[in-house]
């Protein structure tokens, strides 16, 4: 099977620091791929390179067999790659519906939309509600409430719902459970399963080993700016993964990438 998103030989340098050192990356269709690595291993740079937030110095990114070059996150979004950033990238004072459609608002048909540029609030609200319901976020009562009035878990849910609603090819989640409590984390993990069941592949960056081992189909271990190995969570333990990631143990050649 061909990877849906593939990167080869990515290099990114910040001055004399090498963040990505000829790094490869593969995401298969329909899978949840976790990316783990120590702080400073270059996980963020890798993710930013495939989501358009940084432009790699060398190497190629291929989406569905076609080479792509993203100049900005907006380019990647248009290609069908949605990213949920750790900061969530939402405007706190605006409503859930406003936030979900930020930058891709729907306008009314005909004169009112074309000439008066009027937004189709009804349709945006209905769609936003539908997407939230799809992901089991029924507890949000009012789609017009400001995002800042939501709890952390609900905000995360809205951000994931936004990505799931528009991400047609790949969804990237950066530390989605880092700031959340037990219940909210569980909700986000369920959201990940929901999105996966609809056939959209997910890249999950996380430090939380239990979460990674619970939802991931494969685990990409990142070390010193490149892919060290890709492991199957069924065949290795969390301790093995941590050992690979920190360099305490070398992977055997079969698993090495």
């Amino acid at each position, binding site marked *: 099977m061909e990877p849906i998103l593939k990167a080869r030989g990515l290099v990114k340098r910040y001055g004399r620091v090498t963040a990505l050192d000829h790094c490869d990356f593969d995401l298969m269709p329909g899978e949840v791929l976790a990316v783990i690595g120590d702080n400073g291993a270059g996980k963020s740079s890798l993710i930013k390179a495939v989501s358009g937030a940084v432009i790699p110095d060398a190497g190629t990114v291929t989406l569905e067999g076609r080479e792509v070059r993203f100049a900005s996150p*907006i380019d990647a979004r248009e290609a069908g790659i949605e990213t949920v950033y750790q900061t969530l990238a939402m*405007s*706190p004072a605006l409503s859930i519906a406003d936030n979900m459609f*930020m930058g891709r608002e729907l306008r009314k048909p005909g004169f009112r939309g074309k000439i008066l540029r009027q*937004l189709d609030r009804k349709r945006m609200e209905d769609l936003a509600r539908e997407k939230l319901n799809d992901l089991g976020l029924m507890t949000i009562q009012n789609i017009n409430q400001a995002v800042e009035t939501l709890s952390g878990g609900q905000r995360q849910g809205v951000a994931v719902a936004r990505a799931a609603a528009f991400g047609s090819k790949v969804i990237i989640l950066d530390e989605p459970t880092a700031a959340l409590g037990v219940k909210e984390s*569980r909700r986000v993990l369920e959201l990940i399963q929901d999105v996966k069941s609809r056939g959209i592949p997910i890249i999950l960056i996380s430090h939380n080993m239990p979460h990674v081992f619970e939802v991931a189909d494969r685990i990409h271990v990142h070390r010193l700016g490149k892919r060290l190995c890709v492991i199957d969570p069924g065949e290795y333990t*969390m301790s093995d993964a941590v050992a690979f990631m920190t360099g305490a143990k070398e992977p055997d050649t079969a698993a090495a990438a």
Partner: protein
Amino acid sequence: MSAQDNYEAAASGAATEVASFNDLDQGWLGRVHHALHVTPALVPLIVLLSSIIIFGLVLGSKFFSPFALTLILQQVQIVGIVAAAQSLVILTAGIDLSVGAIAVISSVVMGQFTFRYGLPVEVAVVCGLLFGTAIGTLNGWLIAVMKLPPFIVTLGMWQIVLAANFLYSANETIRSQEIAAEAPLLQLLGFKFNIGGAVFTLGVVFMLLLVLVLAYVLKHTAWGRHVYAVGDDPEAAELSGVNVRRTLISVYGLAGLICGFAGWALIGRIGSVSPTSGQLLNIESITAVVIGGISLFGGRGSILGTFFGALIVGVFTLGLRLMGADAQWTFLLIGVLIIAAVAVDQWIRKVAA
């Protein structure tokens, strides 16, 4: 999975109602807080209506007449127009200290182009409006592309434009009679009409229309939502697909255009074209915005609030004058209102309640 995530099982039984909201338990203060949070223009509206009622009770028909009430509209029209421009800028978490200077230089350009170069007055008016737009766009470019702080850019632009205004006009006023005789279009927005004792000018009508149009645009178009998003958190706006740079430049450009219209209305109001007019417009416009409940930190507030804020200042000014009070009392009360308005804004921002 092993024992590691068994701890989650304890939470699973209760997880059916994740953080749902119970609006009923907030109490009276909570409901007020919520209403203000949703409708930020409510505070200035209440202040406006109660000040009209109080002055009306104290002064009687001297104040509470169509004539006096519409006189307030005439007195605040210039500040109201400029404050609308200022609102747009402050919603993006910026500030524009050059609004007054842009309004004045636009009026000078309109006057000088007509009288010095003999251009048709229609052309001169369009040139004045374009000139205002150009200065505003330059502000926006310096802020959005060169990433300079709005306060610094517009502080500098204020000095530059004001100096250019005096140099270009040679500090010379074009007299009202000359304008009325040769280029009455310049005084168009000062045209008065009477509806049952209430006196309106076209400038007042323009201000009202401007406020309504901007309120619509901010609420019901994508651009308006982007203005709020940029003011709220520019980084988040950028990541969620808003072209922050273009939004900022268009906001400052539009503010410049609106100031150009304010300059035109200024000619209508004072009759003449004077390079020394409108010196207080900066401070007065910011005052109206703040009293109107728009947050100086951006992303919150409404243009209607600004309009009410401008009217509050007008009501206090006229009311206290009719009472025969020293004009300093007006400034003192306005000062109190400004601080009170910001205190209320801080309270509204506490969303944890």
